[in-house]
């Protein structure tokens, strides 16, 4: 099946810093989503981004489908950004596969 790899696995930032999270996938995909899982376990949908670039406030994402990667940018990070960030891809077979996640800790 498709492999989804996220990097880095862990990231510690000072409040106000910027960061880039990466998601590589091993095969062509129909769509890609970025999620934020908060400390209570709730998965929040950040972006649906099979290709191109989208922005939502301090967050933006870019997917280059032909090169099989996606990037999530967080600018001016805040402590509330802490949690685990997952990317998930959907293949032609209709199954979704999640990456291992990046655990982000933003310190005040």
């Amino acid at each position: 099946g498709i492999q989804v790899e996220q990097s880095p696995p862990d990231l510690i930032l000072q409040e106000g810093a910027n960061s880039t999270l990466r998601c590589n996938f091993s095969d062509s995909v129909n769509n890609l989503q970025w999620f934020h899982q908060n400390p209570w376990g709730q998965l929040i949908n950040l972006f649906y981004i099979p290709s191109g670039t989208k922005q939502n406030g301090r967050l933006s994402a870019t997917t280059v489908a032909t090169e099989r990667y996606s990037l999530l940018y967080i600018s001016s990070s805040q402590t509330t950004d802490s949690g685990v960030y997952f990317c998930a891809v959907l293949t032609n077979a209709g199954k979704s596969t999640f990456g291992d996640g990046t655990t982000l800790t933003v310190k005040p």
Partner: protein
Amino acid sequence: EADIYQTPRYLVIGTGKKITLECSQTMGHDKMYWYQQDPGMELHLIHYSYGVNSTEKGDLSSESTVSRIRTEHFPLTLESARPSHTSQYLCASSEWGLKETQYFGPGTRLLVL
């Protein structure tokens, strides 16, 4: 965001008991999913459904079963719970088609003693 609900939110149960985790969504989504997630780990797809009377197994082998009798309802059943089933179970739904954005419920944390 889609409205998707899971009950119970937390469940502690003894080995050998039968349990059903409920998942309902009010957005009319055709596709629904069940994932299993251990603390701090990735999500693993265990079941999904394209619509009523459709159920498919995911990538992670699971002793659970699912049913899809109504569009809005996708319950997951464990016939005989074991400590190895202790985990968080997350339900999601999406439209079926070009834009399959998944929306997640709050999850059920299961502890089997």
